[in-house]
């Protein structure tokens, strides 16, 4: 982490010196930036938009809706095509209209300071330094550390929380860790289908913990630590892939004891499980 930070600062310094040489800070890469992106290009975009007061949110390197509207408003004011994407024309117009102090912005991001970057306001008035040294703040500092220099956009599909995904991964891993990947996506899809179905609870945790609903919950296997495959399968299912055609139940034909489950209309067999409605 330390090394990376030093390296980062070096890179910034070099970049700053170089831009000072050419006289024009042209740090944008020539890639088109769009909503959903993260990274240094986004930081620059946000900072430049804030410089001319279009963007009032946090400069955090995550291209969310706030940045999107700011960019669209900029595009409409400057007679550009309003598409909410930062292509070449938009970037050139932005560079002409604004000034970007990369060293200042990147330093504050890396230090985790609260700061703004409005043009015409002295820079030292725009930083709220993180108070360090005083008791009790140490914990906060360590908490915010992972955010430094690493831009995350919480890109979970609307309506799902991080803990929903984790809980589902646990259940899927406990239920079907020996199954092929597609079988794990199918089990995740069943959980989601149950949430959508009026006959079942309407949220992830209630569906999973409904008494008798999943054997992994009854025998405690849900508390095993899931692997990445299970997590990936859950995300695929949440993003809409449903290999089960809307199935609500599944069972292992070798061990299933009830006649009832066999009476359900079956969709198909994936791995060891038969999926049905």
């Amino acid at each position, binding site marked *: 982490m330390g090394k990376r930070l030093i390296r980062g600062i070096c890179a910034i310094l070099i970049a700053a010196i170089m831009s000072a040489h050419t006289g024009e800070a042209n740090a944008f890469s020539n890639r088109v*930036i769009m909503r959903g992106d993260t990274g240094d290009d986004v930081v620059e975009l946000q900072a430049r938009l804030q410089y001319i007061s279009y963007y009032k949110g946090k400069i955090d390197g995550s291209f969310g809706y706030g940045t999107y*509207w700011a960019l669209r408003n900029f595009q409409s004011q400057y007679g550009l095509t309003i598409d909410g994407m930062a292509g070449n024309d938009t970037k050139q117009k932005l560079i002409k209209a604004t000034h970007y102090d990369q060293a200042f912005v990147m330093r504050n991001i890396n230090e985790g300071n609260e700061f703004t970057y409005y043009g015409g306001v002295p820079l030292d008035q725009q930083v709220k330094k993180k108070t360090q040294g005083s008791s009790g703040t140490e914990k906060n500092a360590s908490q915010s550390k992972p955010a430094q220099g690493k831009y995350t*956009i919480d890109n979970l599909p609307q309506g799902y929380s991080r803990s929903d995904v984790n809980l589902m991964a646990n259940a899927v891993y406990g239920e079907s860790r020996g199954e092929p990947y597609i079988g794990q996506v199918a089990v995740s899809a069943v959980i989601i289908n149950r949430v959508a179905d009026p*006959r079942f609870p309407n949220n992830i945790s209630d569906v999973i913990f409904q008494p*008798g609903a999943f054997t992994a919950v009854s025998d405690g296997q849900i508390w095993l630590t899931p692997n990445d495959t299970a997590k*990936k399968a859950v995300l695929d299912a949440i993003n809409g*892939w449903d290999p089960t055609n809307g199935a609500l139940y599944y069972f292992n034909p070798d061990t299933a004891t*009830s006649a009832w489950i066999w009476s*359900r209309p079956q969709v198909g067999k994936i791995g060891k499980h038969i999926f049905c409605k």
Partner: protein
Amino acid sequence: MKRRDWIALLSVAVAVLLIGIGTWGYREYQLRKTVMIDAENHYQQAYHELTYYVDSLEESLGMALAMQSRESMRPQLVETWRLSTLAHAAANELPLTLLPFNRTNEFLAHVGEFTYNSGVKAIKDRSLTNNEYKNLRELYSESQKIRDELRSVQSKVMAEHLRWMDVETALKSQNENRDNQVIDGMKRINMQATDYTDSFSPENPRNAVLEKKRINPITGEQISRNQAISQLRKWIDRPDAKLKKISETGKGSYIPAYEITLSEHGRSLNAAVTRKGGHVVWFLRERSIQKEKFNLYEASQKSIAFLKKHQFKDLELTKRNKYNNIAAFTYVLRKKNIRFYPASIKVKIALDNGEILGFDQSDYLYNKRDYIPMKPAISEDEARKQLNHDLKVQETGLAVIQNQSLNNVLCYEFYATRDNDTYRVLLNAKSGDQEKIELLKE
């Protein structure tokens, strides 16, 4: 002498062991009993709560029927809505194992939906339609039946000291014809609610029978297994991919299809191809993703090229998600400047080499999208009046969405901001009702 000592010693040891095991066993037994009682109490509580809430729900529905206008009925409808949620939650705490409270739950969901739509969502003081009033009456009489059954099971349970834990054991054991009062009681309730749901068609879109009717007719000819395989190979542009498995979907699937697993360079690819017409409904590749080389825009260009290649037209990118070096894009149909949210296609791209990892057009293919009035009945300004004045509208348009009752409705779609928050508000373009409001997180 020696031998006798040995025997004495041994018998003492055995005695100590026996006492030890006995004590331990008794302790375990006690512990188990406590846990069992706890579990039993939990089930009992859930069941009694369920009966109580259904009781109050029936009463509340009855009181609603006494009122004339929507405005005067609203408090009762809202109360019923609240009770249906509570009853639903209690029902879901009871053992599901293979004999679910499915139908009871379905009934509760209908009550919830109906009371929400007519009591909470409906704006203005539009008077209740005849149909709504009829539905309300039906729900009321149904709630009485369900309440009576729940009550009779309850009294049986109390009188004969039946235990829910026994139900669970009975359900788990294969012996299904065991005489179990609780199970019998539950079965009867479920049967009745079945009759009810079958008769309750207009507001019951989630009913499986009706769901089928909502499916777009699939065009094309019936194809064989081999045709399906070659169709898939052509579609993913991998003529050399080996077949690992092919099977037909059962009668539970929306549309009869082939489920195919191919292997390409040792990785497997799963897909579904419809038996009629040979449409590739979805496919999914699984592999580990290396370092990110493509950014989101470049990935989106890849997905557009892929969709173009397969002759998809008039699509608009509406959602993008980036996670674990993967980009997932959702496209929706846009015709005559109206977005058709129910007709959506998803494409998943690996950001290390730009490969298409997944594709899904089930919504696009299956969701019915005709019979929607394309002319709004109220003007945009009229709809806009409902928004808070603090909201700054950034974008406006017309869109078709599938609402909570799974009906396609034409809406005004407003993207609006307040401070740093972005909202999406969907207002019914016919009645002005609020269909959906979202606080966008992306």
